[in-house]
């Protein structure tokens, strides 16, 4: 039905695969041949996609738009499909089908957000992403992952509530759920509520602490997926709704600096990379905040390049963790001649993120910085230049030096790395290189026409000089920068303060929203409430109450002896919520 009018929703591929994986019975391993399929099909679908508005569904008197396709959506969808394919190749060896199903649902949610034409549809997929990705943390099955998963889910639920509150209040004032650009000069308080909800997922400081808290504790393969989709979906919705908001320009540059600052002192390699997501997303948020055609192009191009090289870096770090059994720099070192191919893949990711000429970061990062300077935001451009220095210092030099060099050849027993992990890293490396030397296909995808030429003798020389002298700086400081077996306080300190406090913290917004609901009931009436009732059942009653109780217990127990019954029950609870949600979604989809 949807094929006929020129649009087939890529989420369907991923949902089908997730359902098949969960329903699979028997000892055979042949289910794994399904893994690369949805990414591949989605990629083909997106290549042949036409712009327009498709799959509109009337439900309870509301029109849900599941398929709004335009240039902005396509550039993100393009790289999402690519990264889903690479991610599933990387995860090919994982036996745990639940992990694959969670990853698949998570990607389905991301695609749903990209093509959502209204806030309600967006919200449904937004929450799907948040639930599914929580499982990618929990399924690591470590005691620390349980706690981190709770904090992650709690914080995203909070962000989701900001979004929900904003979109409902917006409806009560404007009478529409349409997801369109907001003019910064006329933005009302409900727009800022929505912006706050988006900012949580974009890891805008100080709402970012969930990211370096949860990602290093997710499964090795799950972190590769998570590094790509949550923050970049948020970048997409910000680009669509909130371009030109001055505050985003400033916050974005602060993010770029904040991320590299922490990355310079962290010890856990996956946490260094997680902080670096904050930094890199900062470039995109700043580009969106400045809001010229060139900086928005820069943000999109950077999102595209970033998804691939950050995935590559997480794959490299994942390989180190998989082989050596630890992600702490203090316990690593001297690995270069033991796992040379991992080093090679990692270093390609590292020079891409640092913006070396001939690799993908160069053609996208320069666009944002140049765009900022052309829009006369010199301080912002200078701040981003400083962050670029920190990027090479922490991810390019510090991490690779202390993990692969620094000590004599490591004697550590290493677990052999499966070939599929190498294959995925090879594919990502190739993309980083091809985009770097031939950026035209990427530039052609961008929402605005590109009049930017990244390569000139000056830009290449300047970049080499800048990065070369950062290398010198690192060489001089290499003993000073030695990693230490410590953790560093961040804003997550505040939401760990204690059981009682976090309970209050988590409950308050819920109550506020409850009050708002009564207001909206009076204003809009029963039809919306019907839909809300469903959403509240799924997300409020099941998810939030469950998590609030669970977290309080968890924190009261000092983070340690979490009762198995409690966790098990909550996870079942959430899974059920997810299944009901998908069931309703499927019903709605096929009735039209």
């Amino acid at each position, binding site marked *: 039905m949807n094929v006929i009018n020129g649009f087939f929703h890529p989420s369907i591929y991923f949902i089908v695969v997730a359902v098949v994986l969960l329903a699979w019975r028997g000892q055979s391993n042949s289910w794994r041949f399904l893994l690369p399929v949805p990414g591949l099909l989605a990629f083909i679908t997106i290549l042949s996609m036409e712009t327009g508005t498709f799959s509109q569904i009337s439900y309870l008197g509301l029109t849900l738009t599941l398929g709004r396709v335009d240039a902005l959506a396509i550039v993100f969808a393009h790289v999402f499909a690519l990264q889903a394919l690479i991610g599933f190749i990387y995860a090919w060896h994982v036996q745990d089908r639940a992990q694959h199903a969670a990853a698949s649902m998570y990607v389905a949610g991301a695609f749903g957000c990209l093509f959502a034409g209204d806030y309600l549809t967006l919200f449904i997929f937004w929450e799907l992403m948040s639930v599914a990705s929580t499982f990618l943390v929990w399924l690591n099955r470590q005691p620390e992952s349980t706690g981190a998963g709770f904090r992650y889910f709690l914080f995203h639920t909070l962000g989701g509530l900001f979004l929900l509150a904003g979109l409902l209040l917006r409806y009560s004032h404007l009478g529409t759920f349409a997801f369109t650009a907001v003019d910064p000069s006329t933005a009302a308080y409900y727009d800022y509520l929505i912006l706050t909800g988006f900012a949580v997922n974009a890891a805008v400081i100080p709402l970012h602490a969930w990211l370096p808290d949860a990602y290093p504790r997710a499964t090795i393969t799950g972190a590769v997926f998570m590094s790509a989709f949550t923050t970049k979906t948020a970048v997409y919705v910000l680009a669509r709704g909130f371009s030109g908001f001055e505050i985003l320009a400033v916050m974005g540059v602060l993010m770029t600096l904040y991320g*590299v*600052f*922490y990355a*310079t*002192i962290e010890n856990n390699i996956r946490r260094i990379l997680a902080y670096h997501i904050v930094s890199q997303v900062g470039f995109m948020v700043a580009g969106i905040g400045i809001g010229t055609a060139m900086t928005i192009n820069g943000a999109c191009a950077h999102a595209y390049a970033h998804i691939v090289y950050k995935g590559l870096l997480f794959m490299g770090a994942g390989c180190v963790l998989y082989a050596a059994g630890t992600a702490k720099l203090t316990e690593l070192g001297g690995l*270069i*001649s*033991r796992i*040379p*191919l991992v*080093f*090679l893949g990692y270093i390609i990711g590292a020079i891409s993120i640092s913006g070396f000429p001939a690799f993908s970061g160069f053609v996208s990062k320069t666009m944002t910085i140049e765009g900022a*300077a052309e829009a006369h935001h*010199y301080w912002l*451009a*200078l701040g981003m*230049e*400083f962050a670029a*220095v*920190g990027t090479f*210092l922490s991810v390019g030099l510090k991490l690779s030096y202390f993990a692969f*060099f620094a000590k004599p*050849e490591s004697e550590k027993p290493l677990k052999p790395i499966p*070939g599929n992990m*190498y294959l995925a890293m090879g594919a990502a490396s190739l993309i980083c290189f091809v985009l770097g030397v031939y950026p035209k296909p990427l530039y052609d995808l961008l929402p605005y026409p590109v009049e930017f030429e990244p390569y000139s*003798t*000056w830009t290449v*020389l*300047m970049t*080499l*000089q*800048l*990065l*070369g*002298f*950062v*290398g*010198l*700086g*690192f*060489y*001089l*400081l290499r003993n*000073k*920068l030695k990693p*230490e*077996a*410590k*953790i*560093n*306080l961040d804003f997550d300190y505040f939401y*760990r303060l204690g059981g009682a406090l976090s309970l209050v913290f988590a409950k308050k917004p819920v109550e506020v929203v409850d009050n708002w609901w009564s207001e909206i009931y009076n204003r809009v009436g029963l039809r919306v409430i019907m839909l809300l009732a469903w959403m509240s059942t799924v997300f409020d009653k099941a998810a939030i109450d469950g998590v609030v109780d669970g977290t309080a217990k968890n924190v009261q127990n*000092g*983070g*340690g002896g979490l009762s198995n019954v409690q966790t098990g029950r909550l996870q079942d609870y959430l899974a059920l919520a997810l299944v009901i949600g998908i069931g309703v979604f499927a019903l709605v989809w096929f009735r039209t």
Partner: protein
Amino acid sequence: MEMKFEKSLANWFRNNREKTRFWLTAFYIFLGLTVVLNIFIRPYHPHFVYDYLPGFFAVFGLVAAIILGRVSKGTAHTFLGKDEDYYERD
């Protein structure tokens, strides 16, 4: 084939790790070259006031790296850094 490539790559890395002197010299020559070339190649549109000066980005990169390293490590040593079991303790 992949194994063979991996082995020769490992050997190459192993041998070159010992040639510190060679690689350091090459690195210094490279740095010098970027500054010398900068005398002849200048930006068409300088963004910041001083970046038409040759070697501006050399100084910027070096100073920024040292500031970042010093400030972040200093902060970690004074109040941000905690023992690894900080959150697990009662």
